[in-house]
Every structure is written in C-alpha cells, then in structure tokens.
C-alpha cells in the first residue's frame, strides 16, 4: 500500500490530504511536499489524515522537519485514527500539534 498525497496552498494555509501508509518508504515524498507547501511561509499546515491507516516514526520526523523549518507554524491533524493518536501520545507529539475533527478554515 502506498501513500496518496494531495496538497493545496492558499494565502496562509497549506493543506495536505494523506491516504494510505506513511512509512520509511513513503515519507520522503511527503517531506518533499511539505517542503514545497511551506515555501510561502503559511501560518498553518493542515494535515487531513482520516484515510491514513499507518504512520511510522518517519511521519513524526516530518512534523519535526516542518517545525524546524518554520518554528511558528501551527500544525493541525484532522481526524487521526486512534492508533495514530496513540503514537502521538506516546511520543509526546500530542501536545505539539492540534488534533481536530473539523478541518479548520483558512486563517
């Protein structure tokens, strides 16, 4: 199973919809996408992850990558699956990203 990535950027909001599996083999493509969408320094990054069935630590590294690239960036995870929530909890990422069930509007 691969990872399907769809991204859009408006004035200050970057959106990426993920579907499939985020592991060591697919993370590099997502990283490229994140790198691209952050070029315009948006205020927030919204990751739609409802269809993401698996996320390895490679996914966490992308969150770190985004934060390092732009420390003031607000990162939203929309509708993560409970197993992924669990991973975020365990690794301490839960407090660092905004978890939401409703996709936020553009800022």
């Amino acid at each position, binding site marked *: *199973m*691969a990872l399907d990535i769809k991204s859009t950027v408006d004035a200050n909001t970057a959106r990426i919809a993920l579907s499939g*599996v985020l*592991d*060591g*083999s697919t993370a590099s493509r997502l990283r490229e996408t994140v790198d691209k969408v952050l070029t315009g320094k948006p205020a927030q990054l919204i990751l739609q992850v409802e269809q993401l069935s*698996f996320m*390895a*630590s*490679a996914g*966490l*590294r992308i*969150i*770190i990558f985004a*934060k*390092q690239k732009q*420390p003031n960036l607000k990162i939203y995870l929309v509708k993560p699956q*409970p*197993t992924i929530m*669990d*991973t975020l909890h*365990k*690794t*301490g*990422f839960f407090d*660092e990203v905004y978890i939401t069930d409703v996709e936020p509007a553009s800022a």
Partner: protein
Amino acid sequence: MSSLPARKTGTNMCALTLPGNLDALSPIRDYVKTAANTAGLDHTATYKLLLAVDEIATNVVVHGYEEAGLQGDISIAAKNEGNRLVIEMLDHGKSYDPNSHQMPDDQGMLQDLSERPIGGLGIMLAKDGVDDLEYHSSESENVHRFIVHLTPPAKPANPVWEQAVSDDQRKLKVLLRISKSLGCEVRLDPLLQLIVEEVTTAMEAERSTLFLVDRRKPDQLVSRVAEGLGSKEIRVLFGIGIAGTTAQTRQVINIPDAYKDPRFNPAFDKLSGFRTRSILSTPIIDQTGVLIGVVEVMNRKGRAFTEDDEQFLEAICVDIALALKRAEMVDAYLQSQILTTSLELAREIQMGLLPKDFPALPELKEVDIHATIIPTFEVGGDLYDFFPLDKDRLCFVIGDVSDKGIPAALFMAMTRTAFKMSALAAPESIGHTMARVNRFLCDSNPQQMFVTALAGILDLKTGRVEYADAGHEPPFILQAAGGVLKVDKVGGLVLGFIRDEEFRTGSMQLNPGDTLVLYTDGVTEAMNVKHELFGADAIEKTLSLTGQTAASQTIIQGLLEGMRVFVGEAEQHDDIAILAIRYLGPSNN
C-alpha cells in the same frame, strides 16, 4: 512490488525473505498482519506490533544496509507458541542493537518540537509495541525477536496466587543473583559498595545505606559506604535514629513516611539534598546470632515497603551476613600477613643487635667464641653479648627476659644496650656494671618485667673470670683436663626488681682449653612429649660426652643435638640461647 504470499502451516508461518530495501516494509507489514490475525490479536495490539516491526525493519534497511553501503536480504518468520506470538526478523547488515539505542528521555519529550533531536523515536515505538524485543547478533546475521504475549498475565480466576508465584520467582532469582554476586567479592571495601548497589536494585529502591557495628566501639554503627555520599563516614549510636534503633532492638523497622516518624533525623537529607520518603531498616545478624550491622533502604519506587519487602530484605541480609563474615576473615588474614612481615623485620633488627658472625673477634687469639639463639616466636627475650673492654679483657653476658614475644624483645634490646654502655663506660667491676643496669631497668620498667643475667669479665692473660649473677642459671666449664664443672652461684637478684640491689661477684679459673658454657632456661627447661625437662644434669652429661678439645661451635652443636633428641616431637616453648667461650691461653704478643 513483489511479495511472496504468506502461507499458514500449523501454528508457524513460512518465512518471508525480501531484498533489504524500503520496498520490503509493506509486504513485511502484510505478513505480520496475517500472523497477528491468525494469533487472534485485537486491532490495537496488531497495529502496535506492525509499528514495532516496521520501525525495526526501517532501521535495518536504512542503517544496517543502505548507510553501511551493504546489500542483503531481510527475512521474517512468525511463530505462534501458544501463549505468545514471536516474530523473528533476520538480516545480514551492520549490527544495530535496539536495546542499546538511546531513547528520547522525558526532557526530550517536553522539549518544543522544533528543538527536539531526531532519532530514538522509532526504537521507542518498537519497544512499546511488543512485550519483549530481543536482539542478538553474530558474525553472519542479526536477529530481532518481537514477542507478544497472547494470554493475559493474570487470570481473573486466581490472580493473586499467580501474581504471588511470579513475584516469588523474581525474588528467588534476585536472591540467587545476589548470592552469586556477593560470593565473588572477598575484599571488604568493594564488597560494602556492592552490597549497597545490590540491595538498592533488588528492593527497587532509590538508595541504601549499610551500617556496620564498630568493633572498637561496639555501641556504635559506622557507615563506610553511602551511595551518593561518597565514602564519608556516618556514625550512629545504638538506640538513636532508625538504624540505631534497629541495632538496639534487632527488629525490622518499616516506615512509610519518614518525616512523620519522630525517630527519623532529617539532617542527612539536608546534607545530601536527598528526600527520604519510606525507610526499611533491617538488622544483619550472623549465624551465631551476633549483630554485624544494619541495612537501611530508602524510597521504594512507586509505593511504601510492604511486609513482603521486609521478608525479602531479611532473606538478602542472610547473604550479606555470610559475605561480610567471609570478607572479614580474609581481611583478618591479610592483616596477620602484614603483622607477620613486621615481625620478621623486628626479628632481623633484634638479631642484628647480637654478634652473629663467627668466628667472632678473630683479633683475639686467646678465645674461641660461639653463640646461638633460637626464639620461640619471631622475636624473643633471650640475649647474649661479648665484647672486649680493653686489649686484655673480654666482657660477656647472657640473659633472659621474663616474657616472650614482642614485649620481651623490646626489654631485651633495652637490657643489652644498657649492659654494653655500662660495661664500656665503667669497666672496673662486673658487679658495678650489673648494679647500674639494674638501676636503669628499674627506672624504665612500667610493665614489671625482669631479666635474669650472668655476666663476666675474662682476663685474657690469666684465664681468670670475675662474674656476677642476677638470678641466672649457673654455667658449666668443660675442662680440657676432662670433666665438667658447674660454676658456683654467687647469689644475686634478677635485674629490674629492686633498684639499689648490690651484686656480689665470684671468680673462676679457665685453664687453656677450658670452655665456659652459658645458657638460658630454654635449655634446662626444654620439654619432651612426656613433659619431662632436659635439666642441668643432662647439660652436664651432654657436655661430658663432647670431646675436651672440641671447638666452641662443636660444643654448642652437640648440646643442641642432645636437646633435639630429648625433646623429640614436642614443641619448643621457651627461647633458647647458648654462649660458649673457649679459653685458648694467653697469646704470645
């Protein structure tokens, strides 16, 4: 993407082998998912196992193969062992031990994401995802084993019992390990440190202190090791504080909250910055019932100490007592070795005080002198000496201090030195010399020791001997003309008793070839196994069997040989000294 279909065979699945690149991750997850489903794992457990295997497989591919510039396969095999599911992953890349890899610590967790170092997260997820993650590596392969327990650890039917059994097993294992660990250390100081470490670990506590009863002050405990406080010494009086009370009552003290207990002294906390919560204090008692010390364990992790903990620590203390006893014995042995070495040195010094090179005084053609001394211990209280007063006179002395061992040796050294100094300073009469030595010894004799002595001055031209007797054995003269003469005692008190004692002198005549034989009571009182004494008569008899023309050395050897035959297997119990002076007649020059 190529993946081999995983086929189920009984409880095991056929191994899946793939090239070690990132494309392997997906089929590996599929394989593990099938194994997890077959084993009946629920959704969450399955996901966690998938995550664990995925993280490790990623590490193997990225760090084990790609970054190391290596290529190879990665194999995975599932085994359902009934009560656990084991996923075994095999690779041939660079060894990468997940258990030694640094995990993000609490501080890292709390750090802002942008400051967080990358790495460790995957290992953390892998270890969290399974009950056990085992790893071993050989030259040919690295093996990771992911283990998930399938049966719940505690059955609701009998959970307490099962828990008790597994806890007992753990304790038994810990006890065996401690027993083994303490058994390997016989040096006292490292052992003390080891005990503290082992107890702290075994009791799942934060700190331990080991107190030993001070042998010199048996109402005090002293702690030579306190973890975290270095080697600072803490002293505690019996009956004071927690450890002191344990020592006095020999009872275990279990305190859930130290600061609420009046016996607790918060001073040590203030010094060390440590915050004591709970304390378990237990006496260490050896097999004979003697209190050796007290061990205090502080701050059981997660809770206070229970009654089970009390019993467990008491069991550990049995091992500690044994180990301490053994170490003390080894220590005592080593100390005795040091003492033996000191005694050997003392012996050399003492023997160095006496003339021991024979033939002695070769410039004196008128005499042939030999002497021997055999202390019972390393050092002894017998002495002899001889030295010329002037070109015509030889002074000699034999003596015996009333004790044996080191005290006697010290008194002997004093006597010998005092005698020589006195004789040389005022050589007019041996009686006066004896009186001066007596006064000196009386003035410096707090131990009320005494010395028997017989001293004389031989006129080398005439063979005339003037002698003084301080309670000593009468000497013999082995006459050149045949026969053995016992010299008359002139009477005199032993040295060191009465300060102003006068010493009468007697005189005797040595004819050329005559030998004057002086000895200490170690000769006359030499005892055989039947507790019979050698006696003066035996000396006389032995001497009479020695040839009249024998040299002084031969005479002494003959006497020693006679004693040896008489004594047989019996042990020597007194110092022995023999001095033989053979008068050869006036010299021609």
